[in-house]
């Protein structure tokens, strides 16, 4: 069963729609559960945390006890995919919402894009199609995705490059476009909006 966590993130509908497209109506009805329940999350073998919007929204995860449920499920080996703010939540936190803690699976804080980069004004948010670079050859999430493939981003905060970074994207310097350590994965881009490349990433996750 795939638990898609509902914490009122804007792209929930689109993520479920993409899963439905890949699985077919019948398997979707059987296997995909949109939920706010820690119990459902504990019973899932795959967990998707969508997200677009403010990091503050992830506070609801702690309030509902979903952070603990996710932590336990990950420890038991459930596959986890965080999308956009969902990836950022895997880090320690974000300067976007000071009091709100992330899961802390990866070290570091998410920070706003710089206003100036190499003395040139940098527009923010980073909106549009940018390329995935330095894709780690052993990444299971990005299997079959070629270096330089374009995916769709929309965000103003970004996660640092860490050991678990599976691909970087350059905009005002390099940031983590994808992270992956064993069963814990995240993408800063929107696979549900990244045409064939994005569908490939989601299919990889479903086939783990």
């Amino acid at each position, binding site marked *: 069963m795939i638990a898609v966590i509902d914490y009122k993130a804007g792209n929930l509908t689109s993520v479920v729609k993409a899963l439905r497209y890949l699985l077919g109506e019948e398997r979707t009805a059987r296997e995909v559960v949109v939920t706010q329940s820690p119990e459902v999350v504990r019973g899932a073998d795959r967990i998707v945390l969508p997200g677009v919007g403010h990091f503050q929204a992830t506070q609801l995860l702690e309030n509902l006890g979903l952070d603990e449920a996710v932590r336990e499920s990950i420890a038991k080996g459930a596959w986890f995919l965080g999308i956009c703010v969902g990836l950022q939540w895997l880090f320690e936190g974000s300067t976007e919402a000071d009091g709100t803690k992330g899961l802390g699976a990866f070290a570091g804080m998410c920070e706003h894009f710089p206003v100036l980069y190499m003395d040139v004004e940098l527009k923010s948010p980073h909106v549009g199609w940018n*390329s995935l670079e330095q894709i780690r050859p052993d990444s299971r999430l990005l299997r079959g995705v070629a270096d330089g493939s374009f995916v769709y981003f929309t965000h103003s905060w970004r996660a640092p490059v860490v050991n678990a970074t599976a691909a970087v994207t350059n905009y005002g310097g390099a940031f983590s476009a994808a992270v992956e350590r064993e069963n814990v994965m995240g993408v800063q881009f929107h696979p549900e909006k990244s045409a064939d490349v994005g569908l490939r990433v989601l299919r990889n996750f479903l086939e783990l």
Partner: protein
Amino acid sequence: MLTKRIIACLDVRGGRVVKGVQFVDIVDAGDPAELARRHAAAGADEVVLLDITATHEGRGTLLETVRRAAAKLFVPFTVGGGVRTADDAAAVFNAGADKVSINSAAIARPQLIGEIGANFGAQAVIVAIDARRGAKLPEDAEVYVSGGREPTGLRVVEWAREAESRGAGEILLTSMDTDGMRDGFDCELTAAVSQAVQIPVIASGGAGSAAHFAEVFGRGKADAALAASIFHFGATSSRELKVQLALAGVSVRLPC
């Protein structure tokens, strides 16, 4: 590298895609869901559906059309026309849109920009500006509403700045002077707006050739450009357009 976006626009009236010349003379161009898919397959970076008569006829957006178009569309999808309240926006998002474009309603009540953003994020709110300047300077271009029917007395650059400060995620700037003429974008106006704000600016109105897109990305400093008729009637596809742009040195996403 962040690429320049090519956005295919579907102007919809009565459930059909239409295309006007300077906002009036209308020609039928097909089924929105079918055309949306075709554009995405042909390499459009985004698809925008504008219900062009919604505001002035005073009815809601065609949610069913949105639902059908969104069902198999895996690129960003924006819907505009008839979104007057945060509830209208919520209905459009629930039908499958990723962003809404608001125009007249944002002028009437600028708080609407922040209200939609509070629930769905700033990235989901595009403020569309219809501009006319005739022979005047870009700084003196005026904002029009109700599908280009009514002047507001607002200056385009100032309104763009206010929209940004109220939490707009992007500006969709349409030049009514160049719209439908296929004679090139208003690069001066686009550059004036793009330099006045931090958020991305989508240029619209006047696309007729690949050279026009290269100009608006260069001289016009646009982050994205939108076109309708250049695609609908098979004059060119996003793929052909992008190959030509790449050859002209513009950074674009070339579809595989």
